[in-house]
């Protein structure tokens, strides 16, 4: 089966700023692909090109078998898009918004109306269906926007930072919806700043920096490359920090970090659960009083530090696009 999304050497410049610098992607049909990166890395620009909103300066891309430039008109019937900023109309009700989208997908009046009601129910918006969107909360708007992307049951779905601004419950709902869609054969490309989210949803993750893919693989492969899980130990008394460091150093596969203010030691490990059990045994043997201990995933910042040698923070000054 040909890939649902391909991109080869996409380049996009805004004046002197290079937003995309040779972006390559290949997303197999019926899978979830995660673009992971900080603000300004080129995630949104990539989505805008793949959804026909922007023309690339160089390179080519195809979605669902249609070239994003030459076949843009025909391509649009096969994609659904939910952007970072909710694209909904304030003065229209939730139902009217979705019906309008259905009409513009040429579903016809009756099917548009039925589809609108179905989606409102699915996203827990039935009670607000006939109220103007003006009165919706930020999370409700995001949900409605997402529903808008699903109106035509598109085979390829683009979600640009879909959970930004959602509360934990809505986030779980969204994750469930994505899982359901993919089980039904939909291809999903999503962007996120959270490794946890990419890990949870995406089979393949591309880490993006300066408009290029700098690492590609499954969540496990990436985590192995950047040193797997982290054990985080908090002690009662900061005087024990050095003991903890010394005791756990043999388990670490990278730099051990000590945070004196939080009385915390972070150790990169492989085989997280087994390593955590071993760590707690060693600390008990040394007589260290542990207040809290646990396993956590590397943060995006740690991923970046390992892969690029720089933190994500410097990116945030650049343009969001």
């Amino acid at each position, binding site marked *: 089966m040909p890939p649902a999304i391909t991109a080869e050497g996409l380049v996009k410049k805004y004046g002197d700023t290079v937003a995309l610098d040779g972006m390559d992607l290949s997303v197999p049909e019926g899978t979830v692909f995660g673009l992971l990166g900080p603000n300004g890395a080129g995630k949104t620009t990539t989505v805008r090109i793949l959804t026909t909103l922007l023309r690339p300066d160089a390179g080519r891309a195809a979605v669902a078998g249609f070239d994003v430039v030459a076949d843009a008109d025909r391509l649009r019937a096969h994609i659904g898009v939910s952007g970072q900023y909710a694209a909904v109309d304030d003065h229209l009700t939730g139902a*009217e918004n979705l019906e*309008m*989208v259905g*009409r*513009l*997908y*040429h579903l016809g009046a009756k099917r548009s109306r039925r589809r609108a009601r179905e989606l409102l129910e699915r996203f827990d918006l039935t009670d607000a269906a006939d109220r103007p969107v003006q009165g919706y909360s930020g999370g409700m708007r995001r949900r409605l*926007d997402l529903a808008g992307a699903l109106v035509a049951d598109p085979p390829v779905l683009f979600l640009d930072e879909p959970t930004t601004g959602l509360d934990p419950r809505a986030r779980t709902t969204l994750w469930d919806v994505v899982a359901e869609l993919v089980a039904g054969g939909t291809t999903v490309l999503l962007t996120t700043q959270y490794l946890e989210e990419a890990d949870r949803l995406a089979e393949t993750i591309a880490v993006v920096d300066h408009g290029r893919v700098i690492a590609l693989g499954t969540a496990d492969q990436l985590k192995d490359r950047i040193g797997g899980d982290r054990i985080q130990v908090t002690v009662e008394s900061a005087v024990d920090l050095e003991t903890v460091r010394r005791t756990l150093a043999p388990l670490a596969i990278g730099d051990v970090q000590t945070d004196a203010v939080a009385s915390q030691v972070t150790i990169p490990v492989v085989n997280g659960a087994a390593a955590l059990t071993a760590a707690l045994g060693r600390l008990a043997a040394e007589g260290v009083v542990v207040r809290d201990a646990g396993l956590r995933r590397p943060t995006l910042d740690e991923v970046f530090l390992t892969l690029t040698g720089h933190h994500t923070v410097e990116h945030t000054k650049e343009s969001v696009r």
Partner: protein
Amino acid sequence: MSTLRFALADGMTIAKRNAIKIKRAPDLLGGVVILPIVFVLLFAYVFGSMIDLPGLSYREYMIPGIFVQTIVMSAQITGYTLTLDLQKGIFDRFRTLPMAPSAVLTGQTLSDLITNLTSIVVMALVGLAVGWRIHTSPHEAVLGFVLLLLFAYAFSWVTAAVALALRKPEVFNNLATIVSMPLVFLSNAFVDSARLPGPLRAVAEWNPVSTIIQAARELFGNTGSAMPVPDAWPLQNAVTASLLWSALLLIVFVPLSTRLYKRAVSQ
């Protein structure tokens, strides 16, 4: 379904969306209903009571001017809402849908046409209540209203082009006020343009707003020897000149707006 049928259907969908917006937004509804009423009453009573013309009611003379003034002024509101839409994500949504790209503008101008029709009906009724009369045959009167609507429709495309070129709501609002005030007041809407000093007179006589107003006055019979028609071609042949103006605006601004729309949304 053919491409043309899609384009029409999509335009209707967008027009319906705009109509719902106007119904729900008090500021927009005010522009369609309240503003025209205020204009007619204010000008009819404030100026209409002060000025006396032999053999012609100044109030009647003024009403067609107020029709056109309202068309020009309320076009600002639709241009402004277009710039607001541009700032939100809604056009991004539209552009990723398999809809006709022309539908956003045809829908917008179509809903403008409906609001203009509403405004003109409201103004005509209020006008009749305060003493405005049509002195011509029914078919001349109908032609008068059609001519006003045609100009209003063409002017919608002008506003759309300006809004799409400027894109920022504040910038648009400032410019629209600066341009529309002289456009309305440097015309024959309220004064006899022949009595203006040289350069201003030339501007007023060739101002398309004057032409449309003159045509409406002729078709409604709101003319008289107290306000003779100035000796300028567009005013001497006002009906023909109005049709030419409207056609010219459409020929220039329909393609221009369409191009500006594509540019504005592909940033």
